[in-house]
């Protein structure tokens, strides 16, 4: 008899292998193109990092349950069963060496969405208990406190107090009927609270109303990263409840990648209900304001700079042109990296990797790609729109001892607002 962990994994694999996944496995031609799309393979050359190989345990279950020969062999006990060793060996491959950046999905010649498969394979891993400890802790904090970094409301309020003092602007909280409900990410509250000041300035300038919610101030969704639809759904539900309570028409996903994927793309499917409000990324909102002529800037940033596309935003979310239009308002010398937009390279810390201490070394190796991209451009400023990317990039910069500054795009815009 299988161990309970294996049973749970097997069951979850069967549960989460859907139509697309069966066809993906069925149509994989083993070409290996996905290897070269993977940051971890590219920087190490180690074939175990080939994206589709990371799905071997899931493939085993698929074979035994969904293919004619696999079923037959399984029936006669001739196929290799899923084992606890498999789960143990693949846990680092599925969690530490994959940021679910989705680059492999772009190059697959038969159109397999490998990133989607990894996301669902993680469901089985977390169900069996084979998920990284760091990510489990973050998810536990997210599920109990509402924040993966464990930021409680008083801590947020204290931060807000400082920002209000600095900017002289009131940060609205629980205002019913505001135009926008802004969500934040843990990283923004802890490390880059400037973001909160920046949106306050911009929204005042644009003449729109907004609010934070004391019941759902975080958009960060560790449930999605660890691969638990149960928890991811709960976290989305908090936001939906708050948005409905405050009767807002639009919820703004913060400068965070996976938060956007969770609330914007997976959200309604996770809770099984259509949203009554719209979800937009802050950059989409800013670009709309720009288009309406409500976002005016003056002056230009003279330093040469480049833009790092957060994977979930650009590749998985389609927010590619907005940041470029916004940047061109304020940057005198904006340079594109060789591969950008939907084909960008990940920072190396998305999809829960940055919350997983065990993956720290691999994350740093992966950073080499970004390092060479930036150095090839000869710029010292990198703008991005994801606080997690920003933190991971800063860690890499510090470790490599290079002279690059990372900025959030929203803050950059706020600095050049035309306040006349």
């Amino acid at each position, binding site marked *: 008899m299988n161990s309970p962990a294996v049973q749970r994994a097997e069951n979850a694999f069967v549960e989460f292998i859907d139509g697309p996944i069966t066809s993906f496995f069925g149509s994989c031609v083993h*070409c*290996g*193109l996905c*290897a*070269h*799309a993977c940051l971890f393979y590219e920087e190490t*050359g180690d*074939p175990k990092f080939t994206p589709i190989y990371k799905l071997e345990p899931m493939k085993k279950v698929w074979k035994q349950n969904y293919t004619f020969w696999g079923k037959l062999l399984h029936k006669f006990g001739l196929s290799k069963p899923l084992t606890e060793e498999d789960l143990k060996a693949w846990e680092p491959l599925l969690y530490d060496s994959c940021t679910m950046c989705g680059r492999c999905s772009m*190059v697959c010649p038969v159109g397999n969405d490998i990133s989607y498969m990894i996301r669902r394979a993680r469901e089985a891993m977390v169900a069996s208990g084979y998920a990284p400890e760091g990510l489990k802790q973050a998810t536990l904090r997210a599920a109990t406190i509402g924040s993966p970094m464990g930021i409680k409301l008083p801590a947020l309020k204290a931060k807000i107090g400082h920002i209000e003092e600095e900017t002289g602007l009131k940060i609205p909280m629980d205002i019913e009927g505001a135009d926008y409900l802004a969500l934040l990410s843990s990283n923004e509250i802890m490390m880059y609270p400037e973001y909160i000041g920046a949106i306050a300035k911009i929204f005042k300038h644009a003449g729109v109303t907004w609010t934070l919610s004391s019941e759902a101030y975080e958009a960060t969704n560790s449930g999605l990263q660890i691969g638990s639809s149960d928890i991811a759904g709960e976290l989305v539900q908090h936001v939906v409840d708050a948005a409905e309570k405050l009767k807002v028409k639009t919820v703004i996903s913060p400068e965070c990648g996976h938060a956007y994927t969770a609330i914007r793309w997976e959200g309604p499917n996770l809770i099984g209900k259509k949203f009554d409000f719209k979800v937009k990324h802050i950059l989409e909102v800013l670009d709309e304001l720009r288009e309406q002529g409500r976002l005016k800037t003056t002056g230009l940033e003279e330093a040469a700079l480049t833009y790092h596309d957060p994977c979930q935003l650009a590749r998985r979310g389609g927010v590619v042109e907005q940041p470029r239009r916004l940047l061109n308002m304020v940057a005198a010398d904006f340079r594109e990296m060789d591969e950008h937009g939907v*084909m960008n390279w990940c920072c190396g810390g998305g999809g829960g990797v940055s919350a997983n201490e065990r993956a720290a070394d691999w994350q740093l190796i992966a950073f080499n790609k970004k390092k060479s991209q930036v150095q090839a451009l000869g710029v010292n400023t990198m703008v991005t729109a994801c606080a997690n990317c920003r933190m991971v990039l800063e860690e890499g910069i510090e470790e490599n001892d290079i002279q690059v500054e990372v900025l959030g795009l929203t803050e950059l815009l706020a600095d050049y607002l035309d306040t006349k």
Partner: protein
Amino acid sequence: MTRLQDIPVNTEITGLDAECNMVDAVLHELKQLLDAYLSSGETGVIDIKSMPLSATDYDSLKQRLGNGEISATASLAGDTEIYETALSGVWWVVHRNIDDRVLAEQLEVGRIPAILCAHDDDIRVARERL
């Protein structure tokens, strides 16, 4: 053998119109058909139309075979063009229908293409008419 790192992530548009080495394959087959004819008198045909030749392949094949001494047009419910290539015994035959659409295109190997020969049944009809 192609190594994993030799397979590009981004493919580039190169040589789409380039020869796909089909010409050499056709020439090689012609050589064999000529051998067969010389040794046993057996005629042979290559069906060009059903071959996946690119436009460049096609032109190049035409150029490589050249033009010989004889050409003929047969009116057979649409024109059929026949000419001997620069290689004696290798004939290029194109059958078209009334709408000028190509029905078949072949390379025939032998003294004379079958389509040029009169059929006994028709000769019999001719005799009856006299």
